[in-house]
């Protein structure tokens, strides 16, 4: 409906030209980053910063410039903003973790059309893989005191997590291949619950997971670049270094995930998945090997979750089964669908929006209301300080989240950034938006 208004059309036309768009994007990023540094506690400033990153994505400009700007923003600007306010870095890390999860689930649900309600199980498998061997926990299994493994093993386990989770994916996939739609959904749900209950119960007869008490302390990756930091005169204080370090690790994993996703999507495997999603019988008739392709979808989707799981356990230092409930699976699914099923930018944006909404906007809103109350603000002559505790805003964040989910689905059911298939077909893949 913007098209009806002449100004809107003018702005749109202007932004379609590379130069003004690029200048505007740089200006926006600069201004908002400055705003964040000036008002480090203002959630709105940080949201504007996030919005300008989004603008960068939509702005029409040559892909090399866009890539450069994105790299600059995520690689330099975000860490700087994050070191001003560590909370933003924490949000960025969690956004990264959920982006990788959403991208993995996007393969299973979005591309291959297999509804998976227990996806978080693979995340748990990855997390426990490193948690058990990267902490003294493994001594309970093997005896002796050879564990925890040296922190450098973390990088090996990042790969191992991929492998183990992919194995779990195949393990789940094998028995359920004959199932369709909701039957598959319920089996994956069951699988997710089985993994969580196992994690919660395998503290006897042999103590694998330490049950509900969880595993701690889990080793973090070594700061192998410490000499470099010292050489350039930076204080290698782990409290400062680790958040940034983890941020870059997440960024790396997300980068690899996106790369793999895009390669796979356009490969014959990706086409086969989409064929299965659209019409399984027709796909089979055209010679798509159903069994192998479905297994691959499960394994591929699971492997990303395994990798981030390893990272997650190192980041948290402590894990227990509470992190891997059914609601987490549902949360990731909501991200994929909110963003636009089957769309890589959609999954990224969906994960970002949900995480930011949950950890930042809703929290910010209730903190703000709390501040108003503490300051004794009155509305229509009625002091907010008299607000009964039953109406405490912090208590209704989930309710607001539910409302937003419904509204989103009702008013934009295709998701925020739906797949641009027609677009791609018309332009032979060349005009795919870069990120």
């Amino acid at each position, binding site marked *: 409906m913007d098209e009806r208004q002449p100004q809107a059309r003018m702005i749109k036309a202007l932004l379609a030209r590379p130069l003004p768009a690029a200048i505007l994007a740089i200006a926006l990023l600069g201004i908002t980053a400055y705003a964040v540094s000036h008002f480090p506690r203002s959630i709105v400033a940080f949201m504007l910063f996030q919005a300008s990153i989004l603008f960068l994505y939509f702005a029409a400009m040559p892909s090399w410039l866009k890539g450069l700007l994105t790299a600059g923003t995520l690689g330099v600007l975000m860490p700087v903003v994050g070191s001003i306010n560590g909370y933003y870095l924490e949000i960025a890390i969690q956004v990264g973790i959920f982006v990788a999860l959403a991208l993995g689930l996007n393969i299973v649900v979005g591309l291959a059309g297999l509804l998976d309600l227990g996806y978080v199980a693979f995340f748990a498998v990855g997390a426990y893989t490193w948690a058990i061997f990267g902490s003294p926990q493994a001594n309970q299994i093997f005896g002796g005191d050879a564990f925890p493994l040296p922190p450098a093993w973390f990088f090996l386990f990042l790969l191992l997590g991929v492998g183990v989770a992919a194995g779990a994916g195949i393990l789940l996939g094998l028995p359920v291949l004959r199932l369709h739609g909701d*039957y598959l959904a*319920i089996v994956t749900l069951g*699988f997710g619950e089985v993994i969580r*209950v196992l994690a*919660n119960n395998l503290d006897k007869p042999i103590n694998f997971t330490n049950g509900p008490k969880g595993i701690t302390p889990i080793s973090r990756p070594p700061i192998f670049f410490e000499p470099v930091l010292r050489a350039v005169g930076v204080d290698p204080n782990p409290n400062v270094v680790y958040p940034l370090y983890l941020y870059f690790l997440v960024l790396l994993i997300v980068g690899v995930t996106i790369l793999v996703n895009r390669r796979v999507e356009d490969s014959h495997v990706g086409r086969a998945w989409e064929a299965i999603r659209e019409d399984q019988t027709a796909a089979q008739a055209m010679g798509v090997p159903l069994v192998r392709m479905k297994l691959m979808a499960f394994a591929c989707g699971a492997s990303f979750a395994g990798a981030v799981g390893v990272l997650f356990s190192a980041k948290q230092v402590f894990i227990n089964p509470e992190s891997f409930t059914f609601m987490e699976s549902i949360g990731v699914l909501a991200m994929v*669908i909110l963003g636009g099923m089957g769309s890589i930018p959609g999954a990224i944006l969906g994960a970002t929006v949900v995480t930011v909404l949950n950890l930042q906007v809703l929290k910010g809103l209730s903190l703000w209301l709390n501040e108003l109350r503490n300051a004794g603000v009155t509305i229509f002559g009625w002091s907010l300080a008299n607000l009964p505790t039953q*109406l405490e805003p912090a208590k*209704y964040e989930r309710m607001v989240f539910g409302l937003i*989910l419904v509204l989103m*689905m009702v008013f934009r059911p295709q998701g925020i950034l739906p797949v641009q298939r027609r677009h791609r077909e018309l332009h032979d893949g060349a005009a795919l938006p870069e990120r």
Partner: protein
Amino acid sequence: MDFELLIGIFPQVFLDGLILGFMYALIALGYTMVYGVLEFINFAHSEIFVVGAFVGVEILLTFQAAGLLALVSPFLVLLVVLLLGMLASGLLAVTVERVAYRPLRGAPRLIPLISAIGVSFFLQDAVRLVESVWRNAFNLVYPTMDTLNIRFSLTETIDVSVKSLVVIVASLLMLWGLHALVNRTKIGTAMRAVAEDQAAASLMGISVNRIISLTFLIGGAMGGAAGVLFGVQYSLINPYTGFIPGLKAFTAAVLGGIGNIPGAMVGGLVLGLLEAFAASYLSLLTGGAFGAEYKDIFAFSVLILILIFRPKGLLGEVVRERA
């Protein structure tokens, strides 16, 4: 191993499993009816169930405060509460459908699912908000009605309470009624027609929207009845109570063959019995190495096994691929 003990508790465990199974079956009906017509998992059904339970407890507490509970026959009270709970849940289900699902008709199947999840989150805390303001508490307890707690001893070790019998009888009546409604009445025929092919049904003069609303009304009412019976049987409810039974009932519906009313009942009973036996016997059979905490794993493993051999559930139709 103590065989005398193992055999001795068998009938009691069977009875417990049966009661739990009927409870699951009643909730599963809500999932299965909506699924049968719309092919969509109404994730918010567990909250519709909870609202029924809350309406029930509110009415009972009002009765109790007015001193009516001691005067009127408990079965009459229960009937009133049951009907009002059903009405409330049914109307809520219809409203939810109008607001959150109807605009999404024709969208890809996962879209209404997410909307339903949103409704579920919303309703959980909305119930809590209302109860916190109204009663300043949201863990509510069903008032004890002595008549319902009377127990008959069948043998020395086995006994059954009146309220358990009420649960079984009420469930059976409702399941039978629903089955009759769907298979023997005009409305039921219309429902099946809509389930088969919405476009064709509407060409035949069936108001598709009205039938879908009706489906939600009946499914919701069943959920509400289950909520009230759940409260009577297990006494404590809170806004989040519905989640686990909802999940189990959904599993039961799939186990029996989703979209199929006798299937929901069979699935519910199988799941209820499985759970009861797993919880009672696992610890005894393994000498304490595995215990009741594994009952869900056991139930889900059996579910997976059954689905491998019968991919459309126990009573599911033969695979019919939709073009």
